[in-house]
């Protein structure tokens, strides 16, 4: 009998659909969403796919409700997801913070369009990168991934679910309009070839269970609602019992752990693809659709005799600080193309720490960055040091 959840095969498929298939293959069985260009196709496809898998699809009244609903569903014991674009992402911010504070696994796919405000609804942008990092109030760590093709929309959506369960955190997929809408070859492997991370369940007797008492890696096992543990979950600052504690010590302990469970596992979370890095004089650091342009520019530079390299970020948050520091110490320049006025480049500059110049190739949105634009900056960077 055909596996309806994992549609093993080779397809010509757009990125939004590939995201859905990745989610379903990862075990997502709850989707709450609200239509918004250019993420609507995810909502539409989920509305057709989930019923045939016995899952729940619900179109909510807005993105605030969508985000709240997936948090509730996650506590109900089901892997849950929503998708949106800029305006909806803004509306989700408060409940993303609730998800972070209550350590609720779930996945949010933001198919970015150009902003601010309504901006260019149908055209590409990468302007929500800092919003992903800091958009909800307070201090915390996040995990955000950046796919650059429909295939990666499939692969990284699975990884997003795995990371969300592993680290008990809402994981953001920072896609963009071009990746969402382009049709490309997508290979869906067999079910047994897909690695799935499940929820870490409590191992202690119910009486002794503390919802926020972490294992050595900083992550606490999670009892679902209805498991009989009678948990209390709150967005107030809370102790290991989950009970509110309105004092500095509880605040420090909770926030520190929320940060450390990600920061302390950075090496396990961060993934980059490093191309021609060993002998590179100049390195382009790129993510999402701009990594496609960057790859072409680096290839073109190499054919022109320039030793260019590429760091393609799979995880944008946490940022690969150690790698960048190492590379910055031995190259002439770092270059980052992004479809905004300079966001991730700030992090790149910080990590480079002045060891080499850092150049931004900026585009305000509406189309992708042409490889030739990046190539000319590569050439200038090489010349600049001569």
């Amino acid at each position, binding site marked *: 009998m055909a596996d309806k959840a994992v549609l093993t095969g080779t397809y010509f498929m757009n990125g939004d659909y590939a995201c859905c298939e990745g989610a379903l293959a990862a075990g997502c069985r709850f989707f709450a969403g609200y239509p918004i260009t250019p993420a609507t196709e995810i909502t539409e496809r989920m509305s057709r796919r989930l019923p045939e898998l016995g899952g729940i699809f619900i179109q909510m009244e807005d993105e*605030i409700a969508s985000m*709240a609903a997936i948090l*509730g*569903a996650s506590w109900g014991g089901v892997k849950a997801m929503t998708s949106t674009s800029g305006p909806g992402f803004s509306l989700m911010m408060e409940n993303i913070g609730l998800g972070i504070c209550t350590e609720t696994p779930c996945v949010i796919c933001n198919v970015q369009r150009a902003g601010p405000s309504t901006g260019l609804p149908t055209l590409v942008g990468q302007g929500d990168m800092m919003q992903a990092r800091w958009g909800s109030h307070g201090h915390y760590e996040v995990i955000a991934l950046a796919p650059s093709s429909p295939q990666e929309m499939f692969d990284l959506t699975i990884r997003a679910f795995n990371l969300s369960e592993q680290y008990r955190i809402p994981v953001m997929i920072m896609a963009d309009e071009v990746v969402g809408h382009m049709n490309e070859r997508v290979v869906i492997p067999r079910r047994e070839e897909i690695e799935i991370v499940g929820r870490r369940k409590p191992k202690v007797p119910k009486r002794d269970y503390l919802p926020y008492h972490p294992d050595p890696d900083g992550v606490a096992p999670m009892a679902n609602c209805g498991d009989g543990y009678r948990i209390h979950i709150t967005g107030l600052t809370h102790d290991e019992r989950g009970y509110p504690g309105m004092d500095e010590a509880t605040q420090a302990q909770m926030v520190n752990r929320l940060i450390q469970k990600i920061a302390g596992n950075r090496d396990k979370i961060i993934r980059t693809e490093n191309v021609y890095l060993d002998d590179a004089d100049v390195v382009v650091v790129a993510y999402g659709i701009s990594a496609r342009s960057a790859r072409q520019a680096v290839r073109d530079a190499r054919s022109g005799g320039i030793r260019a390299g590429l760091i393609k970020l799979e995880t944008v948050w946490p940022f690969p600080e150690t790698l960048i520091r190492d590379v910055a110490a031995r190259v002439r320049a770092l270059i980052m193309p992004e479809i905004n006025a300079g966001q991730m480049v700030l992090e790149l500059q910080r990590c480079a720490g002045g060891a080499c110049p850092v150049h931004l190739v900026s585009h305000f949105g509406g189309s992708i960055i042409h490889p030739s634009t990046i190539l000319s900056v590569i050439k200038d960077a090489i010349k600049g040091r001569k």
Partner: protein
Amino acid sequence: MKTKKAEKTVPEHPMEELIRSERLPHIWCAGCGIGTVFGSVMAAIQKSGYDLDKTAIVSGIGCTARMAGYIRLDSFHTTHGRALPFATGLKLANPELKVLVVSGDGDLLAIGGNHFIHTARRNIDITVICVNNLNYGMTGGQLAPSTPFGAKTTTSASGCPEEPFNFCYLASACGAIYVARWTSLHIRRLTNSITEAMQKRGFGFVEILTPCPTSFGRRNKIGTALETLKFYHERSVIRNDIDPKEAPIDFGSNIVVGKFVDTERPTFLDNYQLSCKNQIGDWPDFEGTMVQENQTGRQDIL
């Protein structure tokens, strides 16, 4: 409720099964009506006979929302106004759960108003208990969608210029299958109403008028909590089964209470499960581009 016969050992809280007594004392002011409602909610939960391990309570933000932190059930204290969509996700993810939402009037019907409309319209199978104390208590007494016209609050010192909502009328218009209003003086009827609402399938709504002596009572010369309750006692008129449109809360004349709606209609899940069985049929422009390259060379349009 009466306390159990005193034990010789350390006395246990009579509602220990349902109260996180380790969290006491609670934060509510002396004279606040929420404690009374909390007692009724617990009594109704016990009376309704649901498995306590499968009963969950969800709240937003505010004085009433703190109930979630004192009840020994799976309990979720979420964001301001968002208890209903959170509860929707929880209930749909695990339909075995009995889900209650406890909320204040501002939480449920100002910031959360849109969710209220749509959760009732969808007929999500949850029981919503709304404590209406006519103002925002937690933040010190600002005007709410329930504040009577002319009433004084810290953001309407010269009198509230807005007309209040009739929550029961709204709930009924949005499709709630059970709608009742009581005051925190009507403990027995209130407990019965919550029990009834819990035992029904669908969106049940129970509103409770309560004194807020610290904020509302003090500024509106209503007096102490006891005097407020006396006022409710004198002015309350029970009129079951009337159209809630005819039951506004009018402090100038009578406060109409009672059970206004008790009906049946399919829940969201009932209808969802039915719709899942329907054939979608041809959908020409939707997934034509998702072409599978089959090993046998066949191309399947999925």
